[in-house]
């Protein structure tokens, strides 16, 4: 059995912790965490996760910039990215879609449901 490895990039520590706990508990997947875009890119390069959950609104380097950076690196280019966002307006979603992210999960969410949502989005 291959376990999944998830990377969550969110500047809010509580969210990192709760998501990590929820995913581990619900699906037993491994969860890597990062508190900022640059840190997340580094972790993605070294950890090669199966998917990246990326907070859109972060200070300094936001989700979109982080996503672009991930896309520009050969080692992280192929990793699917799901945006985490509080505002899920249609226009914004279109914009994300055009960027090429795999999906969007709207905050708030119950972390226990995350594995199922991720699996649905990525057809795992």
């Amino acid at each position, binding site marked *: *059995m291959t376990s999944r490895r998830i990377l969550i990039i969110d500047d809010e520590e509580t969210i990192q912790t709760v998501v990590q706990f929820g995913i581990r*508990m*619900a699906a037993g997947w491994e969860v890597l965490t990062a508190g900022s875009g640059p840190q997340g890119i580094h972790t993605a390069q070294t950890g090669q996760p*199966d998917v990246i959950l990326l907070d859109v609104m972060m200070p300094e380097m936001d989700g979109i910039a982080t996503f672009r950076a991930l896309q520009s690196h050969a080692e992280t280019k192929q990793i699917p990215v799901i945006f985490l966002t509080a505002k*899920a307006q249609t226009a914004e979603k279109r914009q994300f879609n055009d960027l090429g992210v*795999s999906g*969007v999960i709207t905050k708030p969410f*119950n972390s226990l449901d995350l594995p199922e949502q991720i699996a649905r*989005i990525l057809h795992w």
Partner: protein
Amino acid sequence: MKILLVEDDDLLIQVLTRSLAPYHYIVDTVKDGEMGWTYGSTFEYDLIVLDVVLPKLDGISLCKRFRAEGYLTPILLLTAQDTITAKVQGFDAGADDYVVKPFNQTELIARIRALLRRGSMNPSPLLSCGDLLLNLSTCEVSYRGNSLILTTKEYELLEILLRDSQHVFSSEELLDRLWSSEAFPSEATVRSHIRRIRQKLVAVGAPQDLIATMHGRGYYLKVPCKEELAQPSTKSSSNRTATASDRPHSLDSAQSAKLEGSRSPEAQQQYLAFLNATWTTTKPKSLNQVAILAKVVQDLQANQLDLPQQTHAQQVAHKLAGTLGILGLAKAMHLARQLESWLGSREPLQPKQAPLMNTLVTALQQSIEETTQIQMSQILQEHAPLLLAVSADLAFNQSLANVAATHGIRFDTLLPDTAHAFITAESISGQPSSDQPFSDKPTFSANQQPDVLLFRFPTAPSDAADATPSVAQFNTLLTTLQAFASRYPALPILVMGDRSKLSDCLEVMRRGGKLFLDHSAQPEQVISAAVKLLRGSQKPTRVMIVDDDRTWLRTLPTLLKPWGFTVTTLADPEQFWTVLQASTPDALVLDVKMPQIDGFELCQILRSDPNWQRLPVLFLSVLTDPASQNQAFIVGADDYLCKPVKGVELANRILSRLQRVRAWAS
């Protein structure tokens, strides 16, 4: 596995214990029938082996006594009498098997093992959980093909966990089942055994928490989720949403089952406990963030707020909202979101807006301060059924929303045009909406997939002048309905319209409507019809509730009704057996403190009756202390909830318990 051997022949005792030893069975031996009764009725055994000829009380009588008292433990009789009459007598007494002396040892062992298997839920000689495999015939344990060298106790412990991987075993339970009555081990013994097995498992590559600890409850095997064997290469395919054809379409069933399992009461409880632990450290931080916001409002009032400060405050509010949201604190989160959106406006805020901001900040602070404990209902809400109404009648939508809320049903609306745009956009893109994250609202994500749909058709105006747009509206709505029906065939669709127009009515049904209500139907009727549809053709679940609080008993049936429960209430525990037998419930909810008899005793008595050993029992009590909860699980409860409880939560817990029972029985 524990065996009670009642035999007075020392030689035979020796032979039997020796031949059973390699199989790691624990054997308690007593030499007369009375002692046999004392042991058998005091301790729990997986099998009783009885000699027919015994001092004090013969084997046949003892066997009858066990059966008369409701013991279901398999019984094997040993006898020298090889006559049909003797055998028939033995089986009539309730024995499961009969072996004639002198016997062939191998045959006896085989029969014992067959009986043990029959007694357990698992008839196969192989026990497994994910990659962990235990072969009962060879007593070998392996993980991913790597064999584990275990001591007898470690093997037995693992076997127990594997036999019922759904079950959380308390230390007491493991002590009871694993150590013979002569040993006096402590809980620390169990802990150290568990630790050693974990070390051995980790050494062969198993996850550290394959044997998981549920704090305050015990140990259980964590069933890992199964992955597809031929794993599609996630990384090489495009990182856009994959199309339906290039990946397996749905979650594999084991994985779904696992994910379902994550919603079990234990998992939810554990998750909730974690959220609460997180909250204790997060709360002061959140209050600090509120203080920053309060300061900003002050500055605004004094007209001293500049744009960078405002932007910074917006980020603070954003972070705060995120934190509160993930912890399930919806009310506080919404307040923080409102602040965030005010602070995020492009224009600098004006001092005149300060009072409003101040109100929001104060309310937010109060909400955070008041939250000492995150409740189960706060994280469970999204599992409540969702009714999605396609309706342009705003007044009706509002009253329907209110009624839905009182029934614990989530409610959302969609304007006919939006619904049409949504479903047609979807049909064109060819993507099933649950996997389509970019569609217009509603995004049918996991949480938002409706469980029942309502289409409200406009009433035909009486004057002919307006007839044309109305017909167009009607037809568009019909097309929308049909599109929804073909896209979500399993989704029940309720339609409201003019019942007197038979042709319309027929057309609606033809397009996929399941139930047609007249336009004049009241919101209450609509909700109850929706509930019926939600229930489908399922037989209603019978729930019996015993509680001496009569007011509570009166409200509960209303709370539980939307989930299709038939509720029997009982305020007088003295009538318990009569009512229980008459109502034959699928689940039982017990209060702890009642005047004549307490709920724990009632549960204990219930569990000793073979007919009711598997009936799901949930305790509902004002007692919140761990000792009471622990006591409940000791007497055989399946779940424990604290009052006050919301209908949604109680229903969810009952349902999830029943699902487990069904899964187990199937």
